[in-house]
């Protein structure tokens, strides 16, 4: 059995793995968007730009300070999170009382600004980032060749997603967060500092984007445009999944990545658009999204 529908199984599995890698990014990013949306009620357009920032921080750490991948995998998300907290405290905070659309527009402006800054320094061409020594090469599994770094991306993303899920669904902190999503006034009445919780949630959500950025640095070109290309697909993923559940975001992200990978094998021309096509179908059949609740 070396063929499946006339496609060599090796190529097929390779594309599925690539799809899973992309799906991991979709999952981590849409998870961050969902967490932020839950408490802040804004769609963070800047998520893509902050993912790009994470990748650039990893690259800058290595090129300017000689800090390796593993250090930056911890440091970059913290820095991105800190930057997010700064953004929330200085800008986003003032928009909560207004229509949610202003939050989208503000973060769109932040995206353009960040992209513009990086473009003026690094141009539009990508910077290469070497795969860390520990994760280079691959293993032959007999039926396919498995590049270790790609497997690492998938595993690390799933671990981070599950940890986030656990934190939100199973811990006391998560319970407060969910309560704050339902009724912030009541939670505040119980003596919880809700504004601080909101700030930290935003910081955490964008730190996830920064983490995804570092993971992406060795597999994607580190370029100022890497975020905006991705974020629009992630928006479609969010529409398909609905922002109702954490697990839903994770599953939708990974699933769509795999579907995209398979489309690359069977119908390459549609691989860019397949997520959007699925979005259209979902809108026709189940407008609230796969895991969303009709309001």
């Amino acid at each position, binding site marked *: 059995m070396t063929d499946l529908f006339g496609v060599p199984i090796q190529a097929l599995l390779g594309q599925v793995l690539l799809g899973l890698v992309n799906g991991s990014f979709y999952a981590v990013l849409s998870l961050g968007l969902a967490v932020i949306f839950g408490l802040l009620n804004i769609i963070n357009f800047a998520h893509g730009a902050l993912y790009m920032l994470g990748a650039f921080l990893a690259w800058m750490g290595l090129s300017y300070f000689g800090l390796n991948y593993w250090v930056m995998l911890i440091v970059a998300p913290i820095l991105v999170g800190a930057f997010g907290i700064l953004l929330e405290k200085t800008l986003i905070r003032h928009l909560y009382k207004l229509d949610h*659309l202003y939050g989208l*527009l503000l973060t769109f402006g932040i995206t353009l600004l960040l992209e513009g800054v990086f473009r003026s320094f690094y141009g539009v061409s990508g910077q290469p980032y070497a795969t860390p020594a520990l994760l280079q090469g691959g293993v032959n599994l007999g039926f396919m060749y498995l590049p270790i770094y790609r497997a690492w991306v998938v595993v690390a993303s799933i671990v981070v997603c599950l940890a986030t899920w656990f934190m939100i669904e199973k811990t006391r902190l998560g319970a407060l967060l969910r309560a704050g999503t339902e009724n912030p006034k009541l939670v505040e009445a119980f003596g919880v500092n809700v504004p601080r919780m909101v700030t930290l949630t935003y910081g955490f959500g964008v730190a996830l984007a920064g983490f995804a950025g570092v993971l992406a640095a060795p597999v994607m070109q580190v370029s100022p445009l890497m975020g905006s290309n991705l974020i*629009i697909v992630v928006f479609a993923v969010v529409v398909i999944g609905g922002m109702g559940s954490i697990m839903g975001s994770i599953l939708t992200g990974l699933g769509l990545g795999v579907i995209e990978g398979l489309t690359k094998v069977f119908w390459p021309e549609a691989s860019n658009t397949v997520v959007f096509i699925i979005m*259209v179908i979902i809108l026709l059949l189940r407008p609230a999204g796969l895991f969303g609740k009709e309001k």
Partner: protein
Amino acid sequence: MNRQLALYLILAVFIALLPAMGAYPIFIMKIMCYALFACAFNLLLGYTGLLSFGHAAFLGGAAYATGHSLVVWGFPTLLGLLFGTAIAAILGLIMGALAIRRSGIYFAMITLAMAQMLFFYFLQAPFTYGEDGLQGIPRGSILGIDLRNDVNLYYLVMVLFFFGFFVCWRTVNSPFGQVLKALRENEARAVSLGYDVFRFKLLVFVISATLAGLAGATKALVFVSATLSDATWQMSGLVILMTLIGGLGTFLGPVLGAVIVVVLENKVGEFGHMLTQLTGIAWFRVLGESVTMVIGLIFIICVMAFRRGIIGEILHRFNRNKTA
């Protein structure tokens, strides 16, 4: 009401005289195309409260359709313009029918995603010539008037712009427009009063898409080309900025916004250079080299401190003085 009409007449005469005053016709035509685009967009965001993040699809789609029909099929100019506009209307019908199934933030994300889908289609489809764009669109003539002459084309663009502006004005100042405003203010209430919200939203979406298409078709004629940049999400963002900076839900706001954005795009380099010379800070030159950065900054300032926009702010002060 008569004062308003007089204001528009003065504006029309002023625009008509601009080429005679030595203004570069292509530049003003570009502004008029963008102004019409922004007015069309304002029908949705300003008067109905729907944020479409995918209006570039109509601008770009119509530009390609008009260009293709003129270059390949050899349509006469007028028919080509109509064809491009009609394609935008059909796109608007499809996109609108899907997007209005969700509201608020989802509406914005859906329109953005669908416009991006169309962008990828344009990127790959042979008739758009990919990154190169569709070049050498013949302008032809209308009613025997040769449009290869920039000044002749200028007056055609002006007529089209005022036609589009009038359609917007008529739409807003009609019972239909009143329902749209009701939707913006309180959708649940409009539903409870028995209005078929979906039909109203879809209709205004199609009108807006059609006028955006007219702007795109005209733009293809002005620049004798149709390129991918018209269909990018950055263009969708730019039209939001034009409307926001001028004033949401005002008639002249989007027009003024278009003027500001186009002038900025063309002059930002000089402006950065001037700031460098004035202040001695070399960083301003970097700012001048990046239009994206400047647009991002203005976006942030507008949203944080200037949400009424220029015209909106003027009207607000004017009305406050009147009541006081």
